[in-house]
């Protein structure tokens, strides 16, 4: 299947489709799934969702808990400005080279210290769960932030289904390794600062079980475009953005704190926890303020990215300067 990403010269969908019809699109999609998604999409002359693996997948979702009512960062900016080092170090690289991420077929493996491991086609991995919209703040370690309406489900469902054993204290995540296609994975270590592919991340079990932690499969009302981590990614809103690993292929239950990509590359700059914390600076720049994309003045960064009421208790008694 072809992965189509919107070119810069193409008009935004919202520009070419009257809003009423635009909003009814899910109905069309629902019919489309019945008739054969390809035909429906082609017949309506719409550009296909960017992720091939989930093309035609019905994103039928309900509004979820924990959503912020702050104004959302526009779709075009969420999908054209972000980090996805697999496609290069520039903020526009992910969109430019989005088609280098091959998502069809895509399997997600769940294993490690658990009684019910499994390997699933991504469609089957997602389909048992009802999807929710979660509008979360996203704070990048570089000092910018967005408000993004994700569509997904809580990670704790997957964990419960896998039945982790008592000695499973951490959850490790791994993304795709495909240097033949992904230009960012071919960069020389000297120029990339020694990033070790594939991208790896990890959470403590209580963090992974937390209801704020989700696996996202959609953005606004569409399946995730490649540049935002298709077909399935983690979203942990109280941690810096790089903890929310994209394009997940492997979830593993482990006993010890797992190695993570940024922590391995620069352990003094990127900690395992990486909770948003205005009082603990990155060694080279301040974390006290952030620029919300679309705003002119910088704003003060909030502890735990404003999710302290929900998550602070998990870190009680921990020295967050040491465990940054």
């Amino acid at each position: 299947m072809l992965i189509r990403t919107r070119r810069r010269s193409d008009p935004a969908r919202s520009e070419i489709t009257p809003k009423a019809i635009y909003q009814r699109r899910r109905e069309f999609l629902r019919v489309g799934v019945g008739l054969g998604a390809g035909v429906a999409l082609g017949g309506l002359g719409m550009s296909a969702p960017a992720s091939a693996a989930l093309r035609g997948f019905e994103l039928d979702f309900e509004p979820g808990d924990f959503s912020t009512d702050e104004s959302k960062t526009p779709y075009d900016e969420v999908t054209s400005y972000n980090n996805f080092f697999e496609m290069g170090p520039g903020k526009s690289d992910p969109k430019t080279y989005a088609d280098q991420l091959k998502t069809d077929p895509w399997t997600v493996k769940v294993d490690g210290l658990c009684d019910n491991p499994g390997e699933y086609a991504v469609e089957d991995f997602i389909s048992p769960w009802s999807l929710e919209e979660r509008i979360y703040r996203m704070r990048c370690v570089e000092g910018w932030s967005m408000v993004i309406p994700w569509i997904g489900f809580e990670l704790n469902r997957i964990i419960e289904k896998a039945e982790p054993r008592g000695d499973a204290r951490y959850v490790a995540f791994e993304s795709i390794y495909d240097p033949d296609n992904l230009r960012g994975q071919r960069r020389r270590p000297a120029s990339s600062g020694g990033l070790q592919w594939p991208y790896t991340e990890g959470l403590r079990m209580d963090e992974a079980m937390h209801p704020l932690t989700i696996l996202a499969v959609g953005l606004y009302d569409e399946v995730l475009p490649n540049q935002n981590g298709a077909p399935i990614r983690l979203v942990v809103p109280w941690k810096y953005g790089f903890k929310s690993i994209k394009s997940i292929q492997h979830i593993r239950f482990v006993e010890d704190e797992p190695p993570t990509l940024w922590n391995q590359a620069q352990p003094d700059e990127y900690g395992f926890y990486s909770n948003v914390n205005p009082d603990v600076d990155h060694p080279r720049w301040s974390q006290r303020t952030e620029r919300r994309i679309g705003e002119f003045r910088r704003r003060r960064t909030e502890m735990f990215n404003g999710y302290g009421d929900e998550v602070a208790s998990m870190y009680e008694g921990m020295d967050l300067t040491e465990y940054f």
Partner: protein
Amino acid sequence: MLLLSLVPAVWIGLRALGWFDGLGANPIEKLLELSGTHAMIALLIALAVTPLRQMTGLAWVTRLRRMLGLVAFGYVTAHALIWLGLDLFFDWELVLYDLTERPFVMVGFAAWVILLALAVTSTDGAQRRLRKKWVWLHRGVYVAGVLAILHFLWLARADYGEVAVYAAILAFLLGWRVVYSWISARRVRARRAATAS
């Protein structure tokens, strides 16, 4: 030549007005990036004048040196003003914090101060008045070049390709001067020895 050196500034200005794809989702960051890159390039061009004359013997390039130096100072100043006025919006608490706590801001600021001193003393009058001291003072441009590289290096995140290119050019330009002054010193000594005998 002056017009040519202003092309990047005009191009950045037009992008700020939305031409050539505009500045993207984070326009202030983009402005900082573009002005910083062109400040670096302008500084390297100004630093290349003397080695170019020494290599090629073209005396007329020296006449461009002051102008190119001032252009570099202009780009660095624009870059600093974007940081102060747009990025931090004259929030003096943040400015002070950056200047005292962030090494990459400190070295960038130091480079600008050096270039400011050079720009102020770039007139014929100052050159006459300062004589030998002027030569000594204006060697400070090498220090500014090294500080600019450090500034760039310390803010990079897992992307060292571009800064490595600038560092290599700077190393070549500085290395050339060392080698050249050593060779010409030897020549002078040899000539002295010849006349003495």
